[in-house]
């Protein structure tokens, strides 16, 4: 029967709004695994749970805020960063984390990202990048690789995509990393590091969106994209920013790692 409990409880239950499950995400989507990495990072965090705040914008990733059981805000499209900035500036005791998608944070919300990083707003920004506007059905966005198929580009994407770690590094973010939804342990550790790093931190998380991007671009379903991550990802913290471009359709390496952790040097970890 739908809704019948198979097990009495799950280790993640207390950090998820279990009464809101099952979630809305598609089979094969990376968002479930990413949410788990986040809730585990919260669980391991030194910060008291009631001081954690999750803020998201609009889109599939925007729904993460609705599932994590801490104070959580699902705001307007593109605006989670300034909303989070307001929360944190007024009450510096809060540990404020934005989780949102590439379209939300880098198209409609791009200006806020630039300025939050510039002013070193003391918030964490975790961006789930699935290379398209997923919630509305796979239209191309600011991270879609050149040549990608999408309903809004009958002749293929012609504009250059953002390289997000490169952007964040250029803007002076204190912590910059990239992982995928396959690298759940590294991602969780990285999230914990970001939470412990003062100032503005940024993690890009690549995630399969078979519905909006994978299937229409020859990558396949969610499992196929995970295999691609397994076969093509290389962890290289010292990678050149010029080697950080991503095109999952190509037989090319995808560079992951923690590209900057200055913030940790500024404040010794205990």
């Amino acid at each position: 029967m739908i809704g019948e409990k198979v097990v009495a409880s799950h280790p993640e239950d207390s950090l998820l709004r279990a009464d809101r499950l099952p979630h809305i995400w598609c089979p094969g989507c990376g968002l479930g695994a990413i949410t788990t990495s986040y809730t585990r990072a919260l669980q391991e965090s030194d910060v008291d749970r009631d001081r954690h705040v999750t803020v998201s914008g609009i889109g599939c990733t925007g729904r993460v805020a609705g599932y994590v059981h801490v104070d959580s805000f699902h705001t307007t499209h593109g605006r989670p960063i300034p909303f989070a900035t307001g929360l944190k500036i007024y009450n510096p005791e809060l540990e404020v984390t934005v989780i949102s998608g590439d379209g939300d944070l880098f198209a409609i919300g791009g200006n806020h990202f630039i300025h939050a990083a510039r002013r070193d707003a003391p918030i964490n920004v975790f961006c789930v990048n699935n290379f398209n506007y997923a919630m509305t059905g796979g239209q191309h966005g600011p991270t879609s690789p050149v040549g990608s198929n999408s309903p809004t580009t009958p002749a293929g994407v012609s504009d250059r995509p953002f390289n997000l770690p490169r952007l964040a590094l250029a803007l002076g973010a204190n912590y910059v990393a990239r992982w995928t939804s396959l690298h759940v342990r590294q991602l969780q550790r990285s999230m914990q590091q970001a939470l412990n790093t003062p100032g503005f931190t940024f993690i890009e998380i690549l995630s399969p969106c078979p519905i909006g991007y994978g299937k229409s671009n020859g990558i396949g379903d969610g499992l196929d994209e995970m295999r691609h991550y397994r076969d093509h990802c290389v962890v290289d913290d010292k990678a050149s920013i010029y080697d950080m471009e991503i095109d999952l359709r190509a037989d090319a390496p995808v560079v992951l790692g923690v590209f900057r952790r200055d913030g940790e040097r500024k404040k010794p970890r205990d």
Partner: protein
Amino acid sequence: MTTETRPRVLTGKHFMNGDTACAEGAVAAGCDFFAGYPITPSTEVAERLAVRLPEVGGKFIVMEDELGSMAAVLGGAWAGARAMTATSGPGFTLMMENIGLGVMTETPCVVVDVQRGSPSTGLPTLVGQSDIMQAKWGSHGDYQIVAYCPATCQEMFDLTVKAFNTADRYRSPVFVLSDEIVGHMTEGVVIPETDEIEITPVRRPTEPPRDDYPVYRPGPDLVPPMPRAGDGYRMHVTGLTHDERGYPAMDPDTHDELVQRLSRKILEHADEIIEYEEVLVDDAEVVVVAYGSVSRSAREAVQQARARGIKAGLLRPITIWPFMSERIKELDPRVKGFVVPELNLGQVAGEVSRHTSKTVRGVNLAGGELLAPGAIIEAIEEVAG
């Protein structure tokens, strides 16, 4: 740079401009958070608060645009701030996005709009009153908003204080809809003693935090108490239609109930919210409805019309939204008509005509300078017949 730290309430007699009086009203009201973006003719509000808020332990930030400013104001309010911003037409337009979020999530905050000539960039340094309908309907969807229209520097102070109380009382964004003349003119302002300034903070939950606390369960007054982030309620706040728990709900009944309540919590308290001033209205045959800077010319016009033997009166909305419909209906049977001078093409005149069968004569200038009493007197004479 001065190291002197002044108190929250600058009790005494001052000679200050309207924007500065607005900023002092905010500080006196306990405002402790401002996020904004400079825009003429409201910039002096921000400049004053940049100095004053740090003096009283508040936070001040200039954001990258008005989209972000309004989002930051809402974030500040959820962290527990008495939060505000100040802007003018073009910025007000950008803020509409998150004003809608503020309405839907019931977030108290104050937005000051010092109106200038519009549309678009219009007349940045010159007066206008053409944001009246934008204030009412500017963000998408059905909702009721409270907006005050100050006509003097004193009212810039007083109505800013009131706006914070109203925002907290009804958990809603509240507007101070000023204009360039009131914002930029300088006149006497009396700031009362601290204990004479009424401050009614937002109601917080009295129940201790618990996991399934219904953050959106309204009290009998239709307003739910508001927890702060970090209080332990582990709440969810969304611009999606939501149930009492704050969880997204996609059914028509929940949506209708929520949207109806958002309007009802304002309309059912209209008597408490609506304020107006009347001058010689009791026996008036022609009633001039005027607000903001134009009400100053209208006051003079009414006096001059009386001197010419015409029974004219002034009805000045202090609260422009919700509109004083009932008062117009009461006056309808006993007047010959209404004259509505305004620095737009008839936004309030249209509202007046919805509630009367009598003549409604607009006196309109799209903006740029104050309407002089002369044109208003002519209109009064015309309606008097």
